[in-house]
């Protein structure tokens, strides 16, 4: 049952990811990416990461991707045409795929070949908001607080770069 869910969600994630990469229309790509994220959120649930699954949908799919779509709309982007295929490009991509594919197979081999930990029974509250929150405010207090500066930086910077009028004062 769990395995089936994993395969369905995993296949969904991979297919939509591929669609995202190859689709010529940015909006469609963005929607595909959102779908990938939904699938991943489902997989998170399989991994007992309930809090993370929620955040994934709220922050990633909900906030970040909306921002993407907003910018795409703002810039009024159309789909691009794929450049015409030439032999050179075909050869290059063939070699590239060969390389990357080889590496990927290697990596998969490593994952399969390594003695990875097997699932152990988890405490009941593993991955719940409460326990993650507790961890955040105790062991990882410094990183958590520091993110405030990170976000402040990002806000200041984004406003700075994107604001319309370049005022001189």
């Amino acid at each position, binding site marked *: 049952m769990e395995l089936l869910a994993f395969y369905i969600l995993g296949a969904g994630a991979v297919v939509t990811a591929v669609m995202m990469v190859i689709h010529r229309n940015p909006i469609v790509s963005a929607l595909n990416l959102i779908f990938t994220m939904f699938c991943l959120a489902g997989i998170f649930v399989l991994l007992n990461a309930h809090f993370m699954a929620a955040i994934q949908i709220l922050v990633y799919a909900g906030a970040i991707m909306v921002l993407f779509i907003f910018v795409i709309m703002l810039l009024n982007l159309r789909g691009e045409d794929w450049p015409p295929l030439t032999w050179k490009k075909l050869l290059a991509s063939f070699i590239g795929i060969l390389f990357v594919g080889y590496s990927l197979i290697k990596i998969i081999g490593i994952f399969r070949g390594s003695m990875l930990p097997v699932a152990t029974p988890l405490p009941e509250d593993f991955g719940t908001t409460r326990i993650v929150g507790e961890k955040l405010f105790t062991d990882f207090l*410094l990183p958590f607080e520091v993110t405030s500066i990170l976000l402040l930086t990002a806000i*200041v910077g984004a406003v700075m770069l994107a604001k319309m009028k370049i005022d001189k004062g």
Partner: protein
Amino acid sequence: MEIIAPPIDLTGIMPMIIIAITGILVLIIDLFLKERSKNILIFISLTGVIIAARVSFSQYGGIHYSFHRTFVMDTFSVFFNLIFLLGTALTILISANYIKREEINHGEYYALILFATMGMMLMAGGSDLITIFLGLEIMSISLYILAGFRRTKKESNEAALKYFLLGAFATGFLLYGIAILYGVAGSTNLKDIAASIPGRLFDQKPLLLMGMALLIIGLGFKVASVPFHMWTPDVYEGAPTSITAFMSAGPKAAAFAVFFRIFIDSLGNMEPNWNVIIGIMAVLTMTVGNVLAIAQDNIKRMLAYSSIAHAGYILVALVAANSLGFTSVLFYMLAYTLMNMGAFAIIIILGNKGEEHLNISDYAGLGFKRPLIAFAMSVFMFSMAGIPPMAGFIGKFYIFSAAIKAGYIGLAIIGVINSVISVFYYLRITVIMYMREPVREFNPISLSPLIILALIISVWGTLHLGILPGTIIEFARKSTFAFF
């Protein structure tokens, strides 16, 4: 179940807090300031930096973990903090006039520099991959923005975009590496990782190697080592000159601090596995940097390649992985900050509004028209070329000695050959300054008391570190006690 708040110990992160508060203060005060009174911000920022440096300096000595071992204040991180703060102070000094001239005089400029500095301090003091990662991101995000700060210039836009895309790309690899390392070690704490590695060498070694490879890419990008260096020339060229100066000093040092801390502290057991690959990278980085610098006509671009080459020298010290090597790196980063900042200060001084005069031929005859500036520039160029009695020479001498001591004589020889090659292009600037007729008037130039101060500090530092390096070398050596 009640959550018990852990005791909070702020001493370790005090300098960071000071810098962050200064940054926020700058942002707030900026709102109430008129254009002409923006100089106040310079003094606020400088005060903050100086206080932070003072506090940091007073903390020197010993090892102090805080925040559940996510942050450490040891001699190593304090030394790096001082380097960052020096770089930041010099950047602020050389920026004042420049950002007015280029009409980007916004308070955010200083705030972002300060936040980036905080990020670097977090990187140098992080003893958990999570803090290191967050520090890295604070720094990088600030730099992405600062690189694109001249919004009306296409070069600046392009620099920001290239830097951002490639930087985020590299972050992806870095994170993947961290994730795998976490999976192998079961923790993101550097010491825990170090402790767990010997036990994993049998069953999970390939996984460990894979994580390490990904880390090398992510960090190699930040320190601009070949083949992950390609963003450097473009970004250095396009970014505002003061920011280029900033990027070449502090952030580079911070990336090296992380590189060293992770690879010695956590992955020290894996040294036989990584030293060859880092050694090859060091050779490539030195050679590509120096060779490509020769063909450059734009001085910022030339300095970008030169900074790549310098990264190569420092990687040699990482491969050496001994106390001498670490001493040399600390010393070298300090020297490099001083000489590089000085060189960029001169680039800024010689530019005019709208015309930056970045071509090397624009320096013709500077020796006759402005002998003191030309003298300062020669000091920096000689120092970078490693000619005694400048700081750069002592630094190189120590680095290559460390390599010889560790038995990497080939690396040392390649390094010295490279510094011979580098003389070609550093000397070219001097030759042009002293042995060509001037092609332009060096009047007006953007001299201001602040930038002169920066120049004096850099020249003095470059000469002082070369002629009287004793105290600093001893200071640097003591700072490596955190590791050895």
